[in-house]
């Protein structure tokens, strides 16, 4: 029997993996993948919780919108990273530090 707890544990694990990928930044594309993992963890949560919300299905609707928004922001992110690559010839955020205090 797979219970709600299983879903929550899996989503918490995915979220932590995503957060680690973001914090251990080596490559801007990897950061985007980490962001995608975090969003998917949240989506999993929404769908799992939505089992108990049979009137409005708010969680499932939220999940659908979250998928669309994640795709949009990743598309913009990739375009911007491509632009950075043209100027710097690298996408390692540690090497791109012209703006700083």
């Amino acid at each position, binding site marked *: 029997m797979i219970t709600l707890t299983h879903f929550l544990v899996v989503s918490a694990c995915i979220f932590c993996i995503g957060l680690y990928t973001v914090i251990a930044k080596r490559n801007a594309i990897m950061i985007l993948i*980490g962001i995608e993992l975090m969003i998917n963890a949240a*989506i999993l949560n929404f769908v799992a919780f939505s089992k108990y919300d049979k009137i409005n299905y708010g969680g499932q609707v*939220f999940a659908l919108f979250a998928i669309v928004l994640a795709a949009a922001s990743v598309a*913009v992110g990739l375009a911007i990273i491509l*632009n950075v690559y043209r*100027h710097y010839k690298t996408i390692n955020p540690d090497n791109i530090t012209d*703006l700083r205090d």
Partner: protein
Amino acid sequence: MQDINIQLPSILDQVLQSIPYFKAELALIIAFLGSILATLFLDKAWKQSSFLITIIGIIVSFVLSTQQFGQPQSGFFGMLIVDNFSVYARGIIQIALLICVIFVQQHFQNKKFGKNLGDVYSILLTAGLGMNILTMTSNWLLAFIAIETVSISSYILVGYFSENKKQSEASMKYVLFGSVSAAIMLYGLSLLYGFTGNLDFTSFEHIQGLIEAPKILLSIALLFMFVGIGFKLSFVPFHMWAPDVYEGAPTPITTFLSTVPKIGALVLLARLFEEWTSSSFFFSELVLILVSVASIVTMLAGNLIALRQTNIKRMMAYSSIGHTGFLLMALVGNLASEPQVLLFYITVYTIMNLAVFGLIDTLEQKIGSAQLENYQGLGKQFPILFSVFTLLGISLVGLPPTAGFIGKLFVFTSIFDLFQFNNNRYYLILLVVGALTSVISLFYYFKIPLFAFLRKGEAVNILPTKSTWIVYIISIILGFSTLVLGIFPSILLSLFK
């Protein structure tokens, strides 16, 4: 499934009935589509067509939203709230957006680059749409969609031109930081949904669920939720993107980023704050403490770091972070008084920032630099410009007789009322820090007249650019309006009755 088939006609009826509440936003959507089409087809014949459509769209939207004044309603099954608070906020947003569009048009008018300016106008319209929706919702789904709409539009605005290294770096930092914040906020919202089973944060089930939720998990969920809002408002510790992006982005885009997105996020937070802090349960106190601490830390960090900046845009970025802290304080003060105090401060903040960035843009076009040391001795060459700049500095510090002083006075008064009412020590700390940081801010705002009037510098060659005068005149008018509003604050206050 059977139930939905029976309900479907009534659901559709209610959706159709709700459309009139959405008129102002529909005008923006139509203008958005129109400006894309105009960019594609009409701009070849007449270059300003997309600009004209954008301006008309914003004005129509403004008129339509003012018509909703005085008739509180809610549409789309309670997802959309049309009340006076949202009408005021949308009015401010649309006027600020209009001024930003004009700044953008003037700034890029005589620059040669291979990109179409019409796209920028349409993106500015979607950002305005997202902001509008953010001011009129109490539903997490709609709020998240609105925040993402604004964020994605802002990423494109910052990264679109990419004329040089700095601009592309700023846009990358912005998009990565923003997406991470949005993802963390989404996870927090999913936890909140799990506790309550309802997405409307004013509903009874939502509050009930928050009361019953386990404390540790609830704290994590609220913290995660505040990460997203904190990113949009750029309060400490989610402010790291602001100075880099403000410095890197083209000045008219910085003008937009420092004013419009903050209004919407602040109105959402005000609704949340008012609804959630009215009880005495754990989550209410947690929200109050989180906002108060964020306000205190933001005021201190923003104003202290601004002291050692040499680039005026970067300095204004830290100044606007400091003002965000003050806006959060106004939010707390909002509990004691009518929303006029908050709205007054938001309006004054917007006017001051628009004017300051307009002047920075004018100077940048004329002398080609935004470094403070390049302003040396320019007071003689541009006496009016730097006099207004100094006046705006006085207003930003919060000294009489300017509107900044009146705004700060109202906020301090309402916080003091709250303190006398329930002796919470957080209110006292807020008051002390607010007063202290106002004094600190004096030192960096007055660097501008110090460099311009008192330091000697050789005369600067004025770059041969035309067409900065519209931006210049708008900034001068806005600058003097801070003086007028400081002497007669009742003009604005009677509007916000």
